């Protein structure tokens, strides 16, 4: 027992094991692995959860809402206010997209807090795909709305002509860094939090395995994990909020060039 523990560095579990993607239904389309994986499954759960909340909770359409209807209405109003405050009334057209985005990230993050679940947003490819889609979409909206004038986004006001080439390149790099910062922030927050939880869970197992006096010490990491789980739930919500609000800010930039 103790020999095996020492081999695995005293940890009974591998903290990165939770991020492994494995196929549930292997699908192969023309040599491309398009299997239905555990990640796909939890994304489907998130989508079904959102549809369940928005469609079935609103099914009654009661004047005085019940609990579920209240949750659906609150999330609608929360996102609607966010869009109105950050984009203005021109942003109302894009409300469905922002709402879908916010709810999907929120549900993915929150479902990841369930034991034995899989956190889809802890994979950079998932968050990067979302961020790239937003980046391309916002750029296309800007170009369609303003045409050639959209490029003025990269030229700050009152810029001396000498500095123009340098500043424009820096502004362009800054613009291209948006999808990276957007995706890395969400992915890193989710992955770091979940890894931390598993590492501390490993401490508990290590202490219990050591036996004797050490068994009592296991209470410390357990207490930390309880507190940290609360913080993780806050982070899950906060990151969904930040993701949505940054999308609003980017959209606002594209709609109303400074």
């Amino acid at each position, binding site marked *: 027992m103790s020999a095996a523990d020492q081999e695995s560095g005293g940890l009974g579990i591998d903290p990165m094991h939770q991020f492994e993607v494995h196929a549930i239904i292997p699908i192969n389309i023309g040599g491309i692995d398009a299997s239905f994986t555990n990640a796909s499954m939890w994304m489907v759960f998130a989508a079904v959860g959102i549809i369940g909340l928005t469609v079935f909770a609103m099914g009654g359409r009661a004047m005085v809402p019940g609990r579920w209807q209240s949750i659906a209405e609150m999330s609608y109003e929360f996102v609607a206010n966010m869009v*109105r*405050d950050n984009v*203005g*009334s*021109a942003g109302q057209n894009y409300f469905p997209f922002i709402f879908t985005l916010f709810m999907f990230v929120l549900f993915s993050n929150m479902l990841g807090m369930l034991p034995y679940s899989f956190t889809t947003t802890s994979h950079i490819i998932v968050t990067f795909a979302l961020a790239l889609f937003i980046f391309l979409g916002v750029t296309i909206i800007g170009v369609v709305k303003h045409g050639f004038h959209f490029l003025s986004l990269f030229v700050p006001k009152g810029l001396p002509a000498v500095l123009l080439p*340098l500043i424009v*390149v*820096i*502004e362009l*790099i*800054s613009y*291209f*860094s*948006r999808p*990276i*910062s957007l995706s*890395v*922030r969400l992915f*890193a*927050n989710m992955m770091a939090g979940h890894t931390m939880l598993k590492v501390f869970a490993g401490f508990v197992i290590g202490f219990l395995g050591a036996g004797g006096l050490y068994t009592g010490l296991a209470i410390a990491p357990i207490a930390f994990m309880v507190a940290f789980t609360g913080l993780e739930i*806050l*982070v899950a919500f*906060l990151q969904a*909020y*930040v993701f949505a609000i940054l999308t609003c800010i980017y959209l*606002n930039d594209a709609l*109303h060039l400074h």
Partner: protein
Amino acid sequence: MKIPTEHDSDTGEERSADKADLAALDAKIRAHAKAHRQKNPEPAETGRRSTAIGMAFRLSTELVAGLVAGGIIGWIVDDQLGTKPWGLLIFFFLGMAAGILNVFRTAQKLAADAAAQVGKPDNLSGDK
């Protein structure tokens, strides 16, 4: 907000009357909302701003994202033009500048938000 549904036979005059009504209602709602916000600031708003870790994390990702974007662009430039070390070198430093610009803008925005929390100016003005 109430949507007038009785005016299905909308002539031009009725429409403009509706619009004036709606505008008046809108102004009323905004005034009320503003007064309400001034009286009781949203607890959620102060809560989500106050996480120092979140703020630090946001700034650091902005910095790193600028660097990474510069590096990737430099790499692509080198690959396409065959200017092996120079593209990566130059764009790495430009990326650094872009990262610092990102951090500066984000910090400015955070400071503006914090100031808005204290002063509570009219942030309901709709279109900018």
